[in-house]
């Protein structure tokens, strides 16, 4: 059952559950952060509406910089602005930022320790028809490997808004991962959010047989899988791992100890992604079998999001199968 403490959307399992793009929550969060703190500035690489920065731009035209199609400049100009006391948010598609400008992010933002906030939109293969060039499935790996960087992957628009407000208040370089398509609203205004804290979204009576650790829009698929498994008599818990770095070691170890088996669920390459980050924690502290739901070392392609999620093995049925497999391996 849903964890009542998380105060989730009671309609989360309804067919007509409200659907909002995660990036929209970012846009609203940035606008709100701009109202709160005048040091917040916005920079965009010719994708202002697409990344939802237009809300900020329209409200604060003098605190917005149009960089053009130049992602390396996007990162380095932001570093310079941060050096003068600004809190710059930079947006583009995740394949371009932190993709194309990775070294500039490493050197001029993280190594230089400047509080630049990087929003990568169109993450995951469910970007759909645009095809593989525009589907970022490497960005978690790219960002979490850099020292000083914080990495956040919100599960819905409401969480994205809270995360954006929270990251505007911190000194650390931070990456937030956003999805393009509308996805179900899982949380509510009342759901607690704190950078670095993972939260149980789905509970069971007594000891779980498997802990599902999910991030981003696929948290919804994980919840649907958990309910289906519960109906079949398989007890699982679902953990929403919104902050991938710094990772919530304590909560991850606790769910692994309880369940003795883990399934990680992410719309990202399994190599180096959230599941890998979880495995790094578990191998050291509480080694248990783990199955990895995600992209299996392949590039994306054109298609409808649902077709692609099915093709690449990230649907509800894939999660259910992985849970049963990991139980067998216990």
């Amino acid at each position: 059952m849903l964890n009542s403490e998380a105060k989730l959307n009671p309609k989360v399992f309804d067919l007509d559950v409200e659907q909002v793009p995660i990036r929209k929550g970012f846009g609203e969060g940035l606008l709100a952060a701009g109202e709160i703190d005048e040091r917040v500035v916005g920079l965009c690489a010719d994708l202002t509406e697409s990344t939802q920065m237009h809300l900020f731009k329209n409200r604060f035209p003098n605190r917005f910089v149009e960089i053009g199609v130049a992602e390396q400049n996007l990162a380095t100009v932001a570093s310079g602005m941060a050096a003068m006391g600004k809190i710059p948010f930079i947006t583009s598609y995740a394949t371009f930022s932190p993709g194309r400008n990775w070294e500039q992010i490493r050197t001029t933002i993280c190594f230089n320790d400047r509080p630049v906030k990087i929003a990568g939109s169109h993450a995951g293969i469910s970007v759909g028809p645009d095809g593989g060039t525009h589907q970022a499935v490497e960005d978690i790996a790219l960002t979490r490997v850099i020292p000083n960087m914080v990495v956040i992957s919100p599960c819905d628009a409401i969480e994205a808004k809270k995360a954006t407000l929270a990251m505007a208040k911190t000194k650390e370089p931070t990456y937030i991962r956003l999805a393009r398509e509308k996805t179900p609203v899982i949380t509510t205004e009342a759901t607690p959010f704190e950078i670095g804290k993972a939260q149980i979204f789905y509970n069971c009576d007594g000891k779980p047989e498997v802990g599902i650790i999910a991030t981003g829009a696929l948290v919804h698929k994980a919840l649907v899988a958990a309910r289906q498994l519960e109906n079949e008599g398989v007890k699982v818990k679902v953990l929403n791992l919104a902050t991938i770095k710094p990772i919530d070691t304590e909560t991850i170890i606790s769910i692994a100890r309880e369940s003795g088996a883990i399934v990680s669920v992410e719309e990202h390459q399994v190599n180096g992604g959230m599941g890998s980050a979880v495995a790094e924690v578990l191998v050291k502290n509480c080694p248990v079998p783990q199955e990895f739901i995600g992209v299996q070392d392949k590039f994306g392609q054109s298609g409808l999001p649902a077709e692609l999620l099915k093709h690449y093995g990230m649907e509800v049925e894939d999660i259910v199968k992985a849970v049963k497999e990991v139980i067998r391996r216990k």
Partner: protein
Amino acid sequence: MDNLDDDKIKFLEQKANLIRQTIIEALIEAKSGHTAGPLGMADIFTLLFFHVLRHDPQNPLWEDRDRLVLSNGHICPVLYATMAYAGYVSVDEFKQTLRKFGTKFQGHPHREFFPALENSSGPLGSGLSQTVGMALADRMDSGRSSQRFFFCLMSDGEMNAGNTWEGAMLAGKEKLHNIIAVADRNNIQIDGFTEDIMPLEPLADKWRAWNWHVIEANGHDFEDMNNAIHEAKAVFEKPSMIIAHTIPGKGVAEFERKFEWHGKPPNKEEGERALKELRSLGGKIKGGYHQD
């Protein structure tokens, strides 16, 4: 800004000579590092830190200071040595610890170890854009009458990198007149002469095409460089690029104009010969090394 009188020029010449000696001493001790670029830029750094910049070594983070961004981080020995003589840090500490474990004076500038630096750098092509970001933020806060100037010291080789031109384009678009970029036009990079590796000429025309005000100057002539900076400060509505023609390895005949000296330090003997040459002002002083 003051014009330079003869006394001040003499003072700067002596200071630049000391800075060159100190760079050589530090490189001998470090046993690695870059020689040609730091020696070639010693006159320009001396002029900036001892005549041009509004700064306070006792209060390095003074808000109203001019900013100096070093884009081509590998020439940092000249930045460190000049900052040391300006009073930011100890000259001896620099000579003894350059590139050693735990030092402020990392092989390439790292702000975490030396917070008085404006930026960390090394990977080429990114400094100009950081300078543009600083000037943009300053304009948001202080408007177009800001008293601050933003200097970016960069190399010619790093103009191979697209990031340089991305920054140039934005500075032109935003008419950031208080940016003064100084390019070390020494015509060498690691693999050879710049015009063989990836031709940059017509370089001044390129910058003009990005809506920059371009000035060419002799990077070893204090008066010429000072006048160029004067002119750059007077230009409104455009950022300025000073193409400073320099001789790599300047001051030591053995190192001058040789790209082989881009990325290696002198060994003990080469270093001692260089020091003798500098201390004797190229043989002008009796007992000096040079016999010619």
